[in-house]
């Protein structure tokens, strides 16, 4: 029990704390509101459920760094429980004789006791990891743009948060031990009892003073720290779940937001400065815990490029802290993102693989920032890698990034059956979207032929658009040329709807086409059912429509998940199933399925030189495939095929790189 003076002091302290909390939190909210658009708060019940899930499972951290994640669960669950513990502690101190009665009380105390120790162990682990071990995954390479205050700030911040947690929980633990000593033991608090043993001999007044002091330090730390929350990464505790809760809904992980080009009042396209980013992208830096999990999975960073998605978020955070008053006061922030947040080379190194989006435990979206910066660079400043100009011109004039003017049906010539166009076969059931790669790239033409051969063998009633097909605009979009994408999307939607493709199935052997047509065209009124060719083929095999040659057993095959099939669109099983059906013994690379590592072609990288780094993305990935000991590296994307084939040639390895469709076509009974 607190004395009357203490109670009055406590009420005053709470008042002061709440006042300053309101001041700093409204600053944080005002800064977020400087961003574009709105946070999404519609459909509140499912959103709250999302937030709760993120809070409890901690954004699914256990998928990576399992040991660290385990210790983090200790702290996180302990802290969630401590909301209750703190409330009970205050009630006990205020209301004479208050306690949770009976067995419930016993269990409550037992859990508090266990979680207290869990938090202390967890926090010790993190402090040792950051300050004694100096874990390499927490450092950022020095070719990456980093805010001048970040390097030291990250350490101070960690120390502050660690100290706060240790202090709060540690003093609460000590206070409980004094209470246990005063009451002569509590079997339901084994750890507190252990600590109480040496305190037992102290005079009662000393024990009482000990409890009072500990209580004030434990609760006082909370009251002192809460207003300071927006200035530390500890805010991730609630901003993380809030971030998941208020994100815009997306049809696919990395589906980009459209721009309204018809609205003449819009003067800013993409993001040049911080406040050009959307509000949800301004929540990100407050949520960021600086764990660099995103950096660890980034194909650009891990191959030595100057891009670190975590550095981007960290820079935003330190920039905001520096300018918090000015930003909250509505002052214009003129400093370009490219000067302090991320370097131009880093912006152009992103493969849009989406790994950073997928892995971030607090729902951050660094890839979207990068895409917004590309948009402003192309649409406003016209500054981008010179090689992309060729791809843009090709898309404008020839409808493909290769600047090819050849017949889009040339790939069909070597086939011993005719591939009908939609004019020749208007009653098709499946539209085979060949894609620019399938039409023009010699390697991908093989894949297109294999796909057509399998469809033909299964008696599928299909057709192609032939010379009416043009690029989906994926390259333009990922390269920031949203206007060009917009024009191509409208043109393709018109073509597709004219042949009734919106009423039928579309099959694509290119995941980039699948993603663009299947998930992104919807924003422009194009709604299509697009299947990856492996999805259709496994269906056909399952239905007994393909006779596969049992004797021609495939050897050991490892499948490389394409980013735009797997992570972005969630298709992992169909290609594996197809391979198994075709008689392959499947091996897995270390990084597979949603952890797959990019081939290096995505995000318009295919059309430019790789940014300078220490290794090539494709060779890094290929080496991983080779390490499985498989005979065949199976791919499901013409660009992956190209990247892996190049790496295979460079490595002079005996491995074979082939698309799943090619493997199935080879296994067809003649």
């Amino acid at each position, binding site marked *: 029990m607190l004395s009357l003076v203490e109670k009055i002091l406590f009420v005053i302290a709470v008042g002061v704390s709440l006042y300053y909390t309101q001041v700093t939190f409204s600053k944080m909210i005002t800064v977020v509101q400087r961003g574009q658009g709105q946070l999404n708060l519609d459909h509140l019940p499912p959103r709250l459920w999302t937030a709760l899930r993120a809070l409890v499972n901690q954004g699914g951290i256990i998928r990576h760094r399992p040991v660290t994640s385990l210790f983090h669960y200790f702290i996180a669950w302990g802290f969630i429980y401590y909301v209750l513990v703190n409330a009970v502690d205050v009630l006990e101190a205020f209301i004479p004789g208050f306690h949770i009665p009976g067995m419930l009380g016993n269990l409550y105390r037992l859990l508090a006791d266990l979680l207290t120790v869990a938090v202390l162990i967890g926090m010790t682990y993190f402090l040792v990891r950051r300050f004694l071990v100096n874990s390499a995954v927490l450092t950022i390479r020095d070719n990456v743009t980093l805010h001048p205050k970040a390097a030291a700030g990250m350490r101070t911040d960690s120390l502050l948060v660690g100290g706060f947690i240790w202090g709060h929980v540690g003093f609460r633990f000590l206070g409980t031990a004094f209470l246990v000593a005063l009451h002569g033991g509590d079997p339901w608090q084994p750890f507190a009892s252990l600590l109480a043993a040496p305190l037992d001999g102290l005079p009662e007044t000393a024990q009482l003073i000990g409890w009072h002091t500990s209580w004030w330090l434990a609760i006082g730390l909370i009251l002192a720290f809460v207003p300071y929350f927006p200035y530390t990464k500890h805010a991730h505790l609630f901003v993380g779940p809030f971030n998941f809760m208020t994100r815009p809904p997306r049809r696919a992980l990395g589906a980009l937001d459209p721009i309204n*080009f018809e609205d*003449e009042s819009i003067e800013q*396209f993409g993001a040049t400065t911080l406040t050009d980013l959307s509000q949800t992208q301004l929540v990100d830096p407050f949520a960021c815990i600086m764990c660099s999990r995103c950096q660890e999975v980034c194909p650009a960073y891990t191959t030595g490029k100057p891009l670190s998605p975590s550095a981007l978020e960290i820079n935003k955070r330190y920039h905001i802290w520096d300018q918090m008053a000015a930003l909250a006061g509505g002052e214009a922030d003129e400093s370009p993102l490219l000067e302090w947040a991320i370097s131009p080379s880093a912006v152009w190194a992103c493969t849009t693989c989406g790994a950073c989006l997928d892995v971030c435990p607090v729902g951050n979206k660094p890839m979207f920032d990068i895409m917004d910066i590309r948009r402003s660079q*192309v*649409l*406003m*400043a*016209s500054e*981008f890698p*010179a090689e992309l*100009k060729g791809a*843009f*011109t090709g898309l404008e*004039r*020839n409808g493909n990034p290769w*600047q090819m*003017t*050849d*017949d889009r049906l040339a790939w069909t010539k070597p086939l011993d059956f005719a591939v009908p166009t939609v004019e020749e076969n208007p009653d098709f059931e499946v539209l085979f979207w060949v894609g620019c790669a399938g039409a023009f790239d010699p390697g991908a033409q093989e894949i297109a032929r294999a796909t057509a051969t399998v469809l033909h063998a299964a008696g599928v009633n299909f057709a192609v658009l032939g*010379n009416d097909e043009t690029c989906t605009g994926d390259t333009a979009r990922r390269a920031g040329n*949203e*206007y060009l994408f917009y024009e191509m999307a409208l043109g393709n939607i018109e073509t597709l709807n004219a042949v009734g493709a919106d009423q039928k199935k579309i099959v694509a052997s290119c995941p980039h086409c699948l993603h663009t047509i299947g998930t992104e065209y919807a924003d422009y009124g194009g709604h299509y059912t697009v299947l990856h060719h492996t999805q259709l083929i496994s269906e056909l095999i399952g239905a007994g429509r393909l006779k596969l040659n049992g004797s021609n057993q495939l050897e050991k095959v490892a499948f490389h998940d394409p980013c735009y099939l797997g992570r972005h669109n969630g298709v992992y099983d169909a290609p594996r199933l197809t391979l198994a059906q075709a008689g392959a013994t499947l091996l897995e690379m270390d990084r597979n399925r949603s952890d797959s590592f990019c081939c290096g072609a995505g995000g318009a990288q295919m059309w430019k030189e790789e940014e300078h780094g220490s290794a090539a993305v494709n060779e890094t990935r290929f080496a991983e495939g080779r390490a499985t000991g498989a005979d065949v590296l199976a791919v499901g994307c013409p660009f992956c095929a190209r990247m892996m084939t190049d790496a295979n*040639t*460079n490595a*002079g390895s005996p491995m074979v790189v082939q698309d799943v469709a090619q493997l199935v076509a080879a296994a067809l009974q003649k």
Partner: protein
Amino acid sequence: MKIIVLIKQVPDTAQLSANMNGLQLMASGPRIINPWDEYAIEEGLKLREAHGGSVTLLCLGTPDAVETLKRGLAMGADEAVLISDPQLAGGDSLATARALAAAIEKIGAYDLVIAGRSSIDGGNFATAVQVAALLAAAQLSYVAAIKAIDPAAKTITVERLMEAGRETVSSKLPAVMTVVKEINEPRYPSFMQIRKAAKKDVPVWSVADLGLDAGQVGAAGSQVKWSQIDLPPTREAQVEILEGTAEESAKALVDRLLAEKII
């Protein structure tokens, strides 16, 4: 500096293979800006950025050539003028040059006229040269680099790309210059500039506006007539892919090029 850039709208000859004969392509088919003229615009913009002044685009063509002028405006030019009149149809390079020269005189007080090396359709390599003669201005063709320019002293020194090498030439301004692709890398217009350009007015001048007679321009004013245009015959090419590692295939390539006496 007052700079005038001559740009021509041409058929996209890269699209020739798409089942079209020459005359059809000349009459219809997708249109683009003559590729060399993009380099001329870029050089004009760079000079303006360095020395101030303005860049005016001038094109003689059919009414739809305004699209080509808009593309040039989107690259950053200040103004554009289209010379268009049914009387201009069927003009040879001299007749075209007469109209262009008259328009340049109408714009007046220019320091430099920049044109492309040649067009990808007519390919006369002559129009700009004839413009220079008609204007009695200095004529600098095949420019690969501007070494020095002094708008106040009205002098220019350029490097010309000849078959046998490079030649440095100085002259007085005003001058008419044609450029080759080595001179720069043309910029890609941003959407903001495309939107701004779309709102700009492009005046259209007729033969009468230029103070010329119908007999001086178009087919009537031309010595050269086109009776027929054919596509070049397609050449059968053989493709061979050299297998092996990068080093092996590079070596094999060099051996083959030596054997074929190409290098």
